[in-house]
């Protein structure tokens, strides 16, 4: 969806402000939100793409106004309610009012290593790759209403394949419960002028990871 989360190239947000000696968490609740998200992912309630999708559907002023882990908390609430793991009435009450749903597995201290290591998103190829290293491609000008990993700032633009990653789980279908639908994944590189016009700094090159359904031959 064309949401405010898709920030590449926007103006007006001001300077980047590094924080010296930044702590891992700025308040204890932030750590709890992170861990709740991971634990709910582990038990199979929803996955990382669904986590991102839920945050993207927050109303734009809310998304912009919320700090990072508040946004996560709102995403968790949306996912557990939408998927029936808890009722809005229970979150409002602060207590369970009904028994829980069955889950695939429950996170225990013995499983922490599994959570601390990123999963593997590679899958067997369903078809040969359409593109190879060095190919020129044009990013499709598409505007899906649901979750996508194709940022607006590259749509319609010409780039070059600089890496072929293999076949990966496709977030666009995963996020809407339509399965992994594995797709070839490429790194596509663009010149700055291609994306930002003739006044752009010619020394800058920008790349994105792009799934094959985002690409046309150029």
């Amino acid at each position, binding site marked *: 969806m064309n949401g405010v989360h898709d920030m590449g190239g926007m103006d007006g947000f001001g300077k980047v402000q*590094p*924080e010296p000696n930044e702590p*891992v968490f700025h308040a204890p609740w932030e750590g709890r939100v992170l861990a709740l998200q991971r634990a*709910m992912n582990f038990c199979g309630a929803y996955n990382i793409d669904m986590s991102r999708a839920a945050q993207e559907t927050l109303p734009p002023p809310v998304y912009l106004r919320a700090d990072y882990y508040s946004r996560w908390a709102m995403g968790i609430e949306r996912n557990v309610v939408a998927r029936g793991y808890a009722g809005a009435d229970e*979150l409002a*009450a602060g207590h369970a009012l009904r028994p829980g749903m069955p889950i695939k597995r429950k996170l225990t201290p013995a499983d922490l290593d599994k959570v601390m*290591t990123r999963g593997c998103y590679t899958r067997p190829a369903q078809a040969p790759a359409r593109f190879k290293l060095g190919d020129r491609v044009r990013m499709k000008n598409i505007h899906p209403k649901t979750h996508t990993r194709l940022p607006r*700032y590259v749509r319609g633009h010409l780039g070059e394949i600089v890496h072929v990653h293999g076949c990966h789980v496709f977030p666009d279908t995963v996020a809407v419960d339509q399965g992994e639908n594995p797709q070839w994944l490429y790194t596509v590189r663009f010149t700055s002028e291609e994306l930002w016009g003739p006044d752009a700094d010619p020394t800058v090159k920008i790349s994105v*990871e792009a799934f094959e359904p985002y690409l046309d031959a150029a």
Partner: protein
Amino acid sequence: MRGERGNPGHTALDMLGSAGKITSSAFLHDGTTRFQKVNPMAGQDHKHEHHDHEHGSELSETQLRVRALETVLTEKGYIDSETIDQLIEAYETQIGPHNGARVIARAWVDPGFKKDLLQDASKAVAKLGYVSRVGDHLIAVENTPRVHNMIVCTLCSCYPWEVLGLPPVWYKSAPYRSRAVKDPRGVLADFETSLPADTEIRVWDSTAEARYIVVPMRPEGTEGWSEEQLAQLVSRDSMIGTRLADRPEKTQ
């Protein structure tokens, strides 16, 4: 301690201006959007707002909401608080930029390792053994006198947790996510990093499940240094690409 500390200098506040402060609970439970004005002065008087945060409504509201969420999920049988405690501790202690710094220091002293790292970073880092678990799809990109690399996630906050820990607030912030792909030299200036005008800058937007780590250039004047000494010069930001590795004077 206040909720907004996560967004230093956030101008979204100013943008919203008279829309007032939004309490997030209002639009969670029914799936619709209701904005509630609790502080019409928000965005016009930051000082006043900070005061509010410290004493009251928003922080405690966030805390209460997170507590409610954890309580409900616990009572439903999906999670238990002891595991949550241990998971938080693991994030605080097991991962962090010290892992990445050791990888970079090794690459600086061992050309064979550097080659492997640039070829397949997940495999190379896993072989080191002393770095915390590394998932798949880690990619190392090398800075040279001609090319400088910078990583970003414009869509969310993708970041190589295993080697760099959890991302800093600035990495997840709107200013970085919006500008890194369009004005990387301007972003570098915010970090007081300046590069020659003809250096090629490659910005890698992490839009899928590949994760990037930058191999910064080894600083001059470090000949004969041990890996442990060299690792001290490898800051987190140098592995994101917003700074260079520290000069040797820094540790003297």
